């Protein structure tokens, strides 16, 4: 199969197929239709995509998402406790996070993770893609926040993408 008619983005194709089957239920007919979509859509939209990142260890992505789910639940509990405690006022802060990731998709993943987890929302990225502005809901120590994000999320993403 040459590059013109193959699967230029295997991960995208797999995602499309899975989403199609989840939407329509498992059946042979929808399997075939889903396969056609999974093959055709990436080919048709190929020119619209930025250069594809090399995902070195796809199974690590699954681990990463599993950890993210656990963290989301924990984060929600922390935020809920903060919100429901009337004597507690949050100590918000803006933190500039120095990025070591380079690929736009990897940065997007990191920013999304930050927005979904422990009391932080990623607000902006500098034009040279080296700094990420994070708003923390309740954080007294910027350095430890930066370190925590680096160790917990950016390092695994670095291993996966670079």
């Amino acid at each position, binding site marked *: 199969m040459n590059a013109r008619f193959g699967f230029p983005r295997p991960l995208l194709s797999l995602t499309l197929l899975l*989403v199609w089957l*989840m*939407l329509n*239920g*498992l059946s042979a007919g929808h399997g075939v239709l889903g396969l056609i979509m999974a093959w055709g859509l990436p080919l048709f939209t190929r020119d619209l995509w930025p250069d594809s990142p090399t995902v070195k260890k796809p199974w690590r992505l699954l681990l990463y998402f599993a950890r993210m789910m656990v963290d*989301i*639940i924990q*984060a*929600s509990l922390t*935020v*809920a406790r903060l*919100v*429901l405690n009337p004597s507690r*006022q*949050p*100590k*918000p*802060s*803006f*933190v*500039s996070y120095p990025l070591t990731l380079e690929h736009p998709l990897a940065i997007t993943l990191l*920013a*999304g993770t*930050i*927005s*979904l*987890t422990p*009391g932080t*929302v*990623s*607000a*902006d990225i*500098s034009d040279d893609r080296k700094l990420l*502005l994070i*708003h923390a*809901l309740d954080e007294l120590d*910027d350095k430890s926040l930066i370190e925590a994000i680096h160790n917990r999320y950016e390092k695994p993403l670095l291993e996966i993408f670079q």
Partner: protein
Amino acid sequence: MPLIAELSISILLVIGGVFALTGAIGLARLPDFYTRLHGPTKATTVGVGSIALASVVYFATSNARYDLIELLIMVFLFLTAPISANFLAKAAMHLKVKTTDDTRGHPWDQ
């Protein structure tokens, strides 16, 4: 419907309701725009997530419909919640929305 299914559905619904309510309280109680951004991206994600899970369990046990269509709601929510939060934050910075006095650091100039 077996008791265990009923129990887990009820628990999931209560958890979902509590988290959605917490998100709403946060929206009302937190001091400025940026801190209010944290409500919808977190508490609500878990809230909607557990309600969707309850729906999966309900339809699997009552109608024997074993698909995971509700999980897609969660997937799309996880994909879109950070983006909407990001756009709200950018818009707020562009309009120079005021932060509370005890906020450390500054938003960037747009």
